[in-house]
């Protein structure tokens, strides 16, 4: 049996992973059958439903528009990219596996594919075991089908889906309430229902309400009609969780041709090129949505109107923030007399610091070069189990390369997020890195990995 080894590392602080994912599992819908009312269940079936017979997720009555499967998507030559980044499944290893899949003779077998689909994406016990290896003491779990929810057409169905998800996610966290936390889905299709769900999940102990900053059906979450939702966040103390995503747009209604996200443009650079390519999936999509939302709330005085709201900007990197806040300040000064809304009481950058925390992942180094700027506003995320995810040890390695002090490391990796969510550190802390993982015989060797990194090795012929 090959042994995958890692450099020994230690830490003396508790990490908080502010944005890791589960994949909405089949169990969510199974559970809903017995927990939702008959009316809720009927609307859910027509809106977003896992059909056991066909093993397909039905969205708005259409089959399989969502590529994230409620059961692990496994089989010969298949990698379930949203259940992939478990302990030690580093990016270079994924490259080697992706190269194998280019050739039917070397493609992954069904068993290998199953090995890589981590159960922790669906179930709490295996997740907790993975967290121990990954140096993750606490985690905020976030769903995966983020590009689907804004497009759920039936308002009652959207409400039922949020309830079904939130109740399932709450149960997931009960496995270890000191370590597992969930961010709630909110039915933004209808402000009244959104308010009701905010209060309902707050009763469950939820700390975050997720809102995707997109203009699906014209419902960008800056419209005045959402004021009651923001009032509810203030009243309950739930954090406004702003989570962007690549804009695949597969759940758009037929004939809807308007742009709903800046991220659609990066998709279009691919789709209009006439060339196969997908490397851009993780580049700019998130930033385009997050930066627009940050700009809108800061320039409009959103937080001055709702002074008790705290917000988390998830999964969008944070390097851009180092100049975007300055640009907002500059623009406010330049347009001071042209502004039609009430003057801001403080500059946009000051408001951001008072109200927001922004996420970053372990491979993003610039924020660690500017600790004084990011000091209290930066919170780490693993993005596990999505394929680009990685563990806390990787983030610490990067911070050490940047010569970041342990004090800042502990703030970025844990205490900033805990302060935002008002969560205590766990009683027991992971201190030592697991340095060896036993792997199956087919695990890529160093030689194979190095060979796979050559550009020519990855060309589809």
């Amino acid at each position, binding site marked *: 049996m090959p042994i995958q080894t890692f450099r020994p590392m230690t830490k003396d602080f508790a990490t908080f992973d502010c944005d890791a994912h589960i994949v909405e599992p089949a169990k969510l819908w199974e559970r809903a059958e017995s927990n939702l009312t008959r009316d809720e269940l009927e609307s859910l079936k027509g809106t977003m439903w896992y059909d056991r017979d066909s093993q397909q997720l039905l969205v708005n009555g259409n089959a399989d528009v969502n590529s994230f499967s409620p059961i692990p998507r496994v089989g010969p030559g298949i990698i379930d990219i949203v259940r992939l980044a478990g302990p030690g499944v580093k990016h270079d290893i994924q490259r080697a596996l992706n190269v194998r899949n280019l050739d039917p003779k070397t493609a992954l077998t069904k068993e290998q594919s199953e090995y890589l689909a981590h159960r922790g994406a669906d179930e709490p016990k295996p997740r907790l075991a993975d967290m121990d290896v990954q140096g993750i003491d606490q985690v905020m779990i976030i769903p995966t089908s983020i590009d689907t929810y804004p497009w759920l057409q039936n308002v009652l169905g959207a409400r039922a889906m949020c309830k079904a998800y939130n109740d399932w996610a709450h149960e997931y966290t009960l496995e270890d309430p000191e370590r597992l936390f969930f961010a709630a889905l909110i039915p933004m299709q209808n402000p009244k229902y959104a308010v009701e769900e905010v209060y309902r999940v707050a009763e469950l102990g939820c700390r975050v309400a997720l809102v995707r900053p997109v203009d699906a059906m014209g419902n960008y979450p800056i419209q005045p009609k959402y004021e009651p939702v923001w009032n509810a966040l203030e009243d309950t103390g739930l954090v406004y969780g702003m989570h962007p995503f690549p804009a695949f747009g597969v759940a758009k209604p037929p004939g809807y041709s308007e742009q709903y996200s800046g991220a659609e443009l990066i998709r279009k650079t691919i789709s209009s090129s006439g060339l196969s390519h997908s490397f851009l999936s993780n580049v700019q999509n998130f930033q385009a949505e997050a930066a627009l939302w940050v700009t809108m709330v800061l*320039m409009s005085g959103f937080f001055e109107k709702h002074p008790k709201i705290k917000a988390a900007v998830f999964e969008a990197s944070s390097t851009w923030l180092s100049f975007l806040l300055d640009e907002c300040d500059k623009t406010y000064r330049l347009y001071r007399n042209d502004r039609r809304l009430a003057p801001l009481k403080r500059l946009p950058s000051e408001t951001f610091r008072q109200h927001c925390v922004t996420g970053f992942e372990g491979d993003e180094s610039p924020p660690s070069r500017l600790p004084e700027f990011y000091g209290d506003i930066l919170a780490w995320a693993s993005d596990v189990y999505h394929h680009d995810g990685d563990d806390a040890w990787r983030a610490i390695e990067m911070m050490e390369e940047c010569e970041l002090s342990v004090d800042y490391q502990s703030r970025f990796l844990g205490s900033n997020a805990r302060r935002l969510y008002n969560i205590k550190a766990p009683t027991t802390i992971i201190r030592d890195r697991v340095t060896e993982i036993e792997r199956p015989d087919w695990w890529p060797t160093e030689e194979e990995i190095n060979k796979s990194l050559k550009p020519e090795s990855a060309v589809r012929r």
Partner: protein
Amino acid sequence: MITKKRFSVFDADSHIVEPPQLWNEYLDPEYRTVGKQALWREEGAINSYLKINGKMFRDTGNGNIPRHAIWRPGMTWDSVGELDPDTPHAANEGSWEPQARLRDMDDMGVDQTFMYPTWFAEGFHLIEDPDTAYALARAYNDWIAEFCRVAPDRLFAAAMVPLQNMDFAIEELGRVSQIPCFRGAFIRPMFIEERYFTHPYYDPLWAELERLDITAAVHPTPGLWNPEWTSHGPFCEKVNGRLGQANFLSGGGGGPFAGGGVAERSISTIAGAGGAALGHPIAPILSYWLDNHMFVASTLIGFTVMQRYPDMKVVVSHGKASWMEEVLEKMEASTRVIPLVHHYPVRTDPEQMWDEGRVMLGFDAEERLIQELPHTFEAKVVWGSRYPHHDTTTAWDAIQTLENADVEEQSIDRMMGANAAEQFGLGRS
């Protein structure tokens, strides 16, 4: 405030504003009517708009303050913000008159400058008729060449290239390559004919730029006069319009009355067109860097233009530079974790490729990451004043800012002058 420097400053990003005589005198007579149909800027006493392909895109901002050309020496961002919005303010004549511009350059501490268009930047790439686009490109290039002749060692320009027909584009590139003032070919990072620069259609352009040693002068615009799907700006402004939008018919919620149209067309808009509730656009905060970021990530790196044309020089202006490291890190990860579907080799070491490449990014002296890591950026950035935009910065201000951040003079020299002079194929003045 500093008043002396020991190096020459090359302003890699300033603008002209196209005057009516460009159309009336420089456009071939046979194209004057159709040329004004294809692209025209109307500056009226009451109405101002940009016309593209016969369609009118109205100004949505305050017409009393022409922010694309309002700055004059001595103005600060705060003094611009304090201008009376109810009183008409004149545009700076340095944006179309070379002697006035040279005086301003002297005042700003700018020794040489590279000039981009204003209205052509916003509309030229969208012109549908290739023959008219070619005629307008020649007119623009002839007008600005004459502008530059007033001070040939100080004034340089980006040439307009009719990308609508690549044969025409190559011809015009050949012509302008013989005219000394042209040190770059203007490329706005946007979708043209529903396609992006990732399309193989543009391969002959990259090859010709590389062969002629003409710099690809990439410069975005806010897209305030453009339709959706062309660049980041129009969508930003649609969202800006949502700020004042209330639904009277549905009481909120999704569906056909949720406001799923552009803000101007919504039946339920309280305050009217995009940005009306706020009072000003937000696209200038976002679109410049998002458009540049997308061009670099998609075209230069992802679709391997930088890899396949390693000797092509590129300057990507007016959109910050701090984001570059993060793009390279994300691209490196993407080459590993994304399932492989491409049919051509893609380098997996984007940071190495970036170091080796001949691409430079426009930067602002205020960018704190560059202040913190000058040695990381000093070989890859060029400074631009944005003159005469409302957010113009003088060279003196920029140098002072960098000095205050303890950036060494040698690094400042490279970032403020030497890099751009080299990238645009010029000696120091």
